């Protein structure tokens, strides 16, 4: 069953800034879709449109589930500050019509899962940003399979590694139970683990879509190498690179390479760096991830901030 279906979605902010243009997507029940893109690429706007808090300027959106069956976590984290975390959670569930006893047990269970049991009785106003994020996620996830659709904007912000892994488990459990998830995030490892499918947004447009493993495999490389150099490289290094090593777009102080030869490429790369006069400060080798896919597609790192695009 298709839970979400959108075609040609467009949105323009006052002043002519184009946030989305011609975005189409379909999400099936029991699927987790990740939306990735640099800051300003339109991810949050898309989530808000899917949550029906923004009306698209153009295009068509069909959501088969009512708001009551939809759990939304947006970038703002408002709470009834003077209430305790547990009571805040129970009362939000009550607004959704969850019976009191069920709300109490769901709240206790979810707060424990997200590591908030110790502070459940404390006023929300005393919570840190990370705890507020976890409480918002607890509100979204407390009813478990009771919700059909989860729309999450940057759900990992403020979460530590353990929290992220817990969230992956909770989302996969929700999806296994027939739930549908659409999340916007720039965390390649989180999206790679949590999502069945990912779309890349760039300047408000979908530039690629696919399963994370397929997208990464299509890169055709076995490792990504990042080298911090001092003084910062003035331009992209490409001349005289050893065979089997590809230079990617670099940012200030960091050179990026890809290799099909795995770690076997390192000695040759080290020699080349020394010959080119780069003073190596740090070198990181990792398996390619969705950030590499995005970089190779657009030439822009995922952690970049896109400048607003205006008409005229």
């Amino acid at each position, binding site marked *: 069953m298709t839970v979400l279906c959108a075609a040609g979605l467009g949105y323009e902010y006052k002043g002519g800034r184009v946030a989305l243009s011609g975005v189409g997507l379909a999400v099936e029940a029991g699927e987790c879709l990740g939306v990735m893109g640099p800051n300003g690429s339109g991810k949050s706007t898309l989530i*808000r449109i899917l*949550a*029906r*808090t*923004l009306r698209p300027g153009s295009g068509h959106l069909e959501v088969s589930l*009512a*708001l*009551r*069956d*939809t759990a*939304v976590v*947006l970038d*703002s*984290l*408002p*709470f*009834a500050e*003077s*209430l305790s975390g547990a*009571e805040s959670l129970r*009362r*939000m569930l*009550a*607004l*959704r*019509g969850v019976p009191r006893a069920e709300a109490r047990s769901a709240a206790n269970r979810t707060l424990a899962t997200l590591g908030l049991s110790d502070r459940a009785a404390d*006023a929300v106003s005393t919570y840190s940003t990370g705890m507020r994020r976890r409480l918002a996620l607890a509100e979204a996830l407390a009813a478990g399979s009771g919700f059909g659709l989860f729309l999450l904007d940057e759900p990992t912000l403020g979460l530590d590694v353990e929290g992220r892994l817990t969230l992956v488990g909770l989302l996969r459990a929700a999806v296994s139970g027939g739930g549908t998830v659409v999340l916007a995030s720039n965390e390649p490892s989180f999206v790679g683990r949590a999502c069945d499918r990912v779309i890349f947004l760039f300047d408000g447009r979908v530039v690629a879509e696919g399963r994370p493993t397929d997208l990464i495999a299509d890169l055709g490389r076995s490792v990504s190498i990042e080298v911090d150099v001092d003084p910062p490289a003035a331009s992209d290094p490409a001349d005289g690179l050893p065979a089997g090593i590809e230079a990617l777009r670099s940012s200030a102080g960091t050179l990026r390479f890809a290799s099909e030869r795995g770690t076997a490429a390192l000695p040759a790369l080290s020699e080349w760096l020394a010959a080119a006069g780069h003073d190596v400060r740090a070198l990181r080798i990792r398996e390619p991830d969705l950030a590499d896919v995005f970089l190779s597609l657009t030439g822009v790192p995922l952690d970049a901030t896109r400048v607003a695009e205006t008409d005229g």
Partner: protein
Amino acid sequence: MWGLTWRVAASRRRLFIWNVLVPVLLLLPVAFSRAAAPHRAAVVSVFVVLFGTFGSCIPLVRDRARGWNQKVWLTGYGSRPWLTERIAAATTLDLAELTPALLLSFLGAGLGSATGAERFVSALPAVALALLAANLLGALVAAFVASIAEATLVCGATALYALHFSGVFRSADPDSWVWHVERAAPFRPLVTMLREALSGGTAGQAPDNWVGPLIATAALALVTLSVAARLARAVPHDV
């Protein structure tokens, strides 16, 4: 939403105490002054209406800005039931917070404690209607302003105009159009009740004096609830 609004208010005891104390401190000098009853009635009327209007508008604007209204709406709770319950809770809370100050105003009218309390009780319907109308007006303003600064200005202007057309500042010529407007103004029962009660007369209202204000308040409620979705769905922003 009714329960949540009350629970939040109960958990903010310090704010509740201030909301009781400040009206007492502001109305105390008026209550025990030697000013003429119509003047004292005007001051108390203006205070009650501004208390209700500002007290409704500013929290709604603030809660919209921080995303709270939207969060409640996203639970699937209807925007009209949400606003209805919120206004009902806020009106009752306002009444509870203003009771000591109003009681003091009646006692200060030289009526003696027993008579003053009795008159206060008979005046409660007019106070409640005025607070309800003020809360509705505040919510209506909140739907159209973008910031707390705007809310303050627009609330002040609309509440004072509404009071003006309730005859609080002057008496209109009988059968003039202003006189007809005054008879239907939601704050009219409050104004006439306070004038009569603070000058030693009866605080009760003839039933036909209520018809116009009740209809006007119902109309204001319909208009306010028609913009409930605008208040609930709005995207959070800086104020």
